[in-house]
């Protein structure tokens, strides 16, 4: 069967925004892709699909799924049809994220110093003090250029009205950027002509921008600062990404056991003795960073690291304690933060969020659970999530008991029908739900976002859960100028 016939068969679901189709018609920015597909047949596309899989496997681009006993490594499923966003849409997203990060940075500075926002009653103090990621240990520490969030992944979804909404802020150690970059490389390999014809904005300078920002964070008197990437080690699920970024930036990839603190300075153990480290891009969570201050059982961290950080002898990226700003309950207050700190209206809207610590909201959610998704405030990766439309009565009773025990740890949101994109599955085009995570970099010169991001796709039919740990895949994301 020709692809054209398959495309004609593609039926976009009712009441949901489809990225390619609009009431049976192909959207303009998908024109060229559809034309290219018209010249191919199914076996040719299948061949490209196989090639893409091989490229990922041979390069060892794998991640680890903890609950899967079959083996530690798996390929991140990749769908070969790109997801396309127009330059115009992108510009709104870019401005919205820039605005949001500006406010979030100001919030973090405020919350770890004067706490004006609490005093003015914009955010309830109890919400902050009950947040497990609010760290008193970093209160009052001055960070370079007042930047706390250097690297962030902001999760966006597109609702049925075609508008992008913020779903989640990831301000601690967001991962996935290597997939964004590798997806692009693979697309270039399998669709060279189609890619060239589409005028896609470039993203490959991401590691260079990141490296520039990391360099700028070192104390100014150091002419040639040593920057390292701190990884939990090769058994971490994102280890491939750590090696990828270290390689692309030309910096050392270190583990906690490679570092040692002496006289409040950080050194790495080299064959040539100790060498001072000035900037650490860490991919280890706060609580494992320093066993002397946080989790004493941590063997991933470096004893004494906090003392060096406090003295300003080392810059740590992202700053410690950011978790307070991407807590899912604090998320509801980000629009208020934007108004409070910037005196602006938020460009990108939140998804409405109910805090279950509020009895009225809880009652409302419990009544309407079939239309709701309940999330844990301090979990990511789709763990501990309750999808109200699919959960069984029995499981819901269990979940309800959990919520009653500690309502502060849960929020609920109405289920948003994520937009769909055509995917090439079993030799057919089928609509699947997607979200979108652009990666923003914040340095002394402002917020920069490479035009693109990771589109995560829920490969199971009808599923709205896109997390890689829950069977999601990814797509290359093009920002095109028409």
């Amino acid at each position: 069967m020709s692809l054209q016939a398959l495309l004609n068969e593609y039926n976009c679901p009712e009441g949901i925004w489809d990225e390619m189709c609009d009431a049976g018609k192909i959207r303009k920015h998908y024109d060229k892709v559809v034309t290219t597909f018209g010249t191919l047949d199914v076996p040719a596309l299948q061949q490209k699909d196989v090639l893409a899989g091989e490229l990922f496997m041979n390069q060892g681009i794998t991640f680890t799924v903890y609950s899967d006993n079959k083996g530690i490594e798996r390929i991140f499923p990749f769908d070969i049809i790109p997801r396309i966003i127009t330059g115009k849409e992108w510009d709104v997203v870019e401005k919205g994220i820039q605005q949001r990060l500006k406010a979030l940075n100001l919030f973090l500075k405020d919350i770890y110093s004067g706490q004006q926002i609490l005093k003015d009653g914009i955010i309830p103090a109890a919400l902050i003090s009950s947040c497990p990621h609010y760290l008193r240990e970093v209160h009052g520490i001055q960070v370079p250029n007042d930047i706390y969030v250097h690297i962030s992944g902001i999760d966006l979804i597109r609702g049925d009205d075609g508008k992008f909404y913020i779903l989640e802020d990831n301000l601690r150690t967001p991962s996935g950027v290597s997939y964004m970059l590798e997806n692009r490389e693979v697309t270039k390999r399998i669709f060279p002509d189609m890619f060239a014809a589409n005028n896609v904005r470039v993203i490959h300078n991401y590691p260079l921008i990141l490296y520039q920002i990391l360099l700028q964070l070192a104390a100014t008197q150091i002419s040639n600062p040593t920057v390292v990437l701190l990884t939990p080690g090769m058994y971490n699920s994102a280890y491939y990404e750590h090696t990828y970024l270290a390689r692309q930036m030309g910096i050392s990839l270190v583990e906690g056991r490679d570092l040692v603190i002496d006289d409040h300075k950080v050194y790495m153990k080299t064959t040539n003795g100790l060498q001072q480290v000035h900037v650490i891009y860490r991919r280890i969570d706060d609580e494992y960073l320093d066993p002397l201050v946080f989790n004493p059982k941590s063997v991933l961290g470096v004893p004494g690291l906090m003392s060096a950080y406090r003295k300003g002898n080392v810059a740590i990226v992202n700053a410690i304690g950011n978790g307070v700003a991407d807590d899912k309950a604090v998320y509801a207050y980000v629009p208020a933060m934007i108004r409070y700190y910037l005196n602006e209206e938020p460009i990108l809207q939140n998804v409405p969020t109910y805090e279950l610590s509020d009895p009225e909201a809880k009652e409302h959610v419990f009544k309407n659970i079939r239309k709701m998704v309940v999330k844990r405030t301090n979990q990511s990766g789709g763990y501990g999530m309750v999808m109200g439309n699919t959960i069984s009565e029995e499981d819901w009773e269990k979940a309800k008991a959990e919520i009653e025990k500690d309502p502060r740890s849960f929020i609920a949101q109405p289920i948003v029908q994520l937009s769909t994109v055509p995917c090439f599955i079993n030799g057919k085009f089928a609509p699947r739900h997607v979200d979108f995570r652009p990666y923003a970099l914040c340095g002394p010169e402002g917020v920069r976002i490479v035009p693109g991001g990771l589109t995560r796709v829920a490969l199971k039919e009808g599923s709205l859960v896109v997390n890689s740990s829950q069977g999601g895949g990814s797509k290359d994301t093009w920002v095109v100028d028409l």
Partner: protein
Amino acid sequence: MLSRIADSLFWLSRYMERADGLLRATSTHYILSLDNVVMGAMTWKPVLEIFTTKNEEEIRQLEHDTAASLHTLLTDVNNQNSLKVVITRARENARGAQDHVTKEVWEEINALYHLLNQPTISERQGEQDVIQMMQLFSQHSLLYTGVADVTMPRGLGWSFMNLGKFIERCFEVIVMADKHYERIGYNLHEENVIIQWKELLFSLSGYELHLKTYRGADYNHNVLHQVLFNDDFPHSVLYSLTRIEKYLKDIVAENPSPGNANLLRCFGRLYSRVQYMDPKSIDSGSLKSFLADIREDLLQFSNALGQNFFSYQ
């Protein structure tokens, strides 16, 4: 360079060299063992003794069973030195130092690892394509060597990799030579035929060189000269030590440290012991102790190297 990275590169290379030696020895032994007429009482005992940590009793049970021996040597995960375990360890080390090996090297090791972890591999072992299978592994092992040589940047990392490779090779040659001379009770004057040295020479890829280089029928002395002192033979002890000297010097020059003096002394003692040895002066009485001594020296040197550069734990 981070000590941990140096350590990983060193061991990556040691394990890959070990895999290569293991494969060569195993397939040579397998092929020769088919030839019952010549090698009447040949068993897997010597190979198992060199490449596994099995005790005498376990080896006695295994030595006449080709399929079981091959399984032990190639895919048994309970044998700490089986091909599968060795390659897995090599890959772990490559993963730990992934940003220091080239993409090509990583992909080659990864491919070999995936090949060995195919679910059907154990079944194939017992069947007729066992030779083909070992050949395929050998090819990958050679490919790795070539890919590493062509793509790896020269520098500290490369030097540590080569130290690992040649230290491993040196150990391997000493142990294998010892095992083969033990068979004849270290008696260099016992009459022998070349057939009996074939296994050692093939296992070290030195049979052709032997035929081309050595004349006369004093095979015991000739083979000994070849595996210990022939500096044109890439699997001789002297050749390996010469390479070790080069890479050691490169590393020491870049890493001035107080432990270097001891390390160089340690190596110098070993190197001169072999380099300035008069091959003719080795006789039946001194061969065993000579092999034991150089092995001991090599072990000491290897430990000193680790203490000097890799002590990061």
